[in-house]
């Protein structure tokens, strides 16, 4: 690097050059400039991943703020959330953003997941991108489950009870697993310590790590095009530059979504149920959050006994297999060269989606 004379000193250029000698900024900018995003009639689904990332950011930021006022004790948690909602300036806003944000985050993740599934973006060489995305959905659900308990209202208590007991019905390790998760035989302070630590330390780290992998893979492999677009002659396929063209639109979409989200958050602030009374009967009509409704409805439908097996065990195996199939079916279809499997994957996806919607709506009634 030549020492600039006063005459030709360009501060920006000098700083960039200085930085580039230490960190490969120019290479990164060039890389972003070369990256192209396909433009076609299904392009709208490409925004879902970015929206999901936006909500991940909202969750991290609001969660971090909530920790300054939340008290993670079995006795004090409810009062602290009540104080956040009623006394802390703008506490209601931060809490509402966090609780609504969790719901919207998971909804966007589901849309992102199903859209990539039906566009068959999981095909080679993107199998790990799919699996890491599936892992992120899983982590988001555990986030939801552990976060659910923290306000210690009625639904928190019974949802945790049922969730842990469901884990306890897993074959072989079930009882040990339930005992381990609960930290004893009953839900109490130890359970709260475990859920809180998972929710604020372990899961964020896991999510950031897996998201890092997911995003890196997308950068390395570029954005997948649906089969119908791949078939088109090269001249008919359109692309735009990721930087700055796509990013500009992405920022606009983020802004629009954020405004809509803030309307929801402020017009319908997230409430808090009555404080839990461990002696009292589970309240009539108690239901988990919507993203667990399909499993909830399935657990209700299985009878006490099926042949020689406990119904709940059969239900567990059923639910586990159905959700596990989301990791298996795309891998079977990863080459995309076997028409039967390709068709099967599409039909399976449709059946899965309809079944899931059906059980979710039924469970909510």
């Amino acid at each position: 690097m030549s020492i600039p004379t006063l005459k030709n000193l360009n501060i920006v250029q000098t700083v960039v050059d200085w930085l580039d000698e230490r960190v490969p900024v120019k290479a990164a900018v060039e890389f972003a400039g070369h990256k192209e995003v396909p433009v076609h009639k299904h392009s709208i689904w490409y925004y879902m991943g970015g929206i999901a990332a936006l909500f991940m950011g909202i969750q991290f930021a609001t969660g971090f703020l909530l920790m300054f006022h939340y008290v993670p004790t079995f006795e004090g948690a409810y009062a602290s959330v009540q104080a956040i909602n009623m006394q802390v300036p703008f506490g209601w806003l931060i809490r509402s953003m966090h609780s609504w944000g969790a719901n919207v985050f998971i909804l966007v993740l589901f849309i992102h997941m199903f859209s990539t599934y039906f566009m068959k973006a999981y095909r080679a060489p993107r199998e790990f991108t799919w699996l890491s995305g599936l892992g992120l959905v899983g982590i988001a659900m555990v986030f939801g489950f552990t976060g659910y308990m923290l306000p210690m209202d009625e639904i928190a208590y019974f949802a945790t009870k049922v969730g842990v007991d469901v884990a306890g019905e897993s074959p072989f390790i079930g009882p040990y697993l339930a005992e381990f998760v609960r930290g004893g035989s009953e839900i109490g302070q130890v359970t709260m310590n475990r859920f809180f630590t998972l929710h604020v330390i372990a899961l964020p780290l896991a999510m950031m790590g897996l998201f890092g992998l997911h995003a890196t893979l997308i950068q390395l492999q570029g954005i997948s095009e649906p089969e119908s677009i791949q078939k088109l002659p090269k001249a008919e396929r359109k692309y735009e530059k990721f930087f700055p063209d796509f990013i500009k639109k992405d920022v606009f979409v983020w802004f629009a979504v954020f405004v809509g989200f803030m309307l929801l958050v402020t017009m319908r602030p997230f409430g808090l149920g009555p404080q839990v009374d461990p002696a009292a009967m589970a309240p009539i009509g108690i239901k988990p959050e919507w993203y667990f409704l399909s499993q909830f409805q399935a657990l209700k439908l299985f009878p006490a006994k099926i042949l020689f097996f406990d119904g709940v065990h059969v239900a567990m195996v059923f639910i586990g297999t159905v959700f596990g199939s989301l990791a298996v079916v795309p891998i079977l279809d990863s080459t995309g060269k076997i028409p039967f499997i390709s068709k099967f994957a599409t039909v399976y996806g449709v059946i899965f989606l309809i079944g899931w919607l059906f059980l979710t709506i039924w469970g909510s009634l």
Partner: protein
Amino acid sequence: MTTEQDSSKTNESQNNPQGGYDLDSPEVSFSRRAFFGGMIALGGGLWALLVGGTPILSFLWPKKSEVVTVTEMTFEKNLKDFPVGESKNFMFGSIPALLIHDTNGKLSVFNAKCSHLGCTVGYQKDKDVIYCACHGGTYDPNTGKNIAGPPPAPLKPLVADVAADGTITIKIA
């Protein structure tokens, strides 16, 4: 590289027409080294897992806790103030319990933990059943038997003794 590999392949097929491995060829001795290297790595990994995992898992493993901290307690109400059809959810030590003055005039008392997935059950006077709101399990209020829905087993019974003055004592069965 390519030529070397090709030549060793030719050697292998010449030495061993059946297609098996020639243990003396340089390729195989490399494989043996890789095998032992792999075993050492695996063994080392398992060792590290054991040495690191044992204290961490033991640290996190919950203490043994008593399921029932009491064996006997006096119920908060006298029988005189607890008429037929009345029911009450209460804590019996660390477990939720349910006392019902049932339609036969008998006192029934159960561990109120649903045998399905552990929610707390309650008495529904209008339907004369014990009901779990989580997944719709239903039990007979006189016997605790599971009669509808997903619960696989009856409720666990407790015992209610009534003294001459109407004091109700709850005991483990």
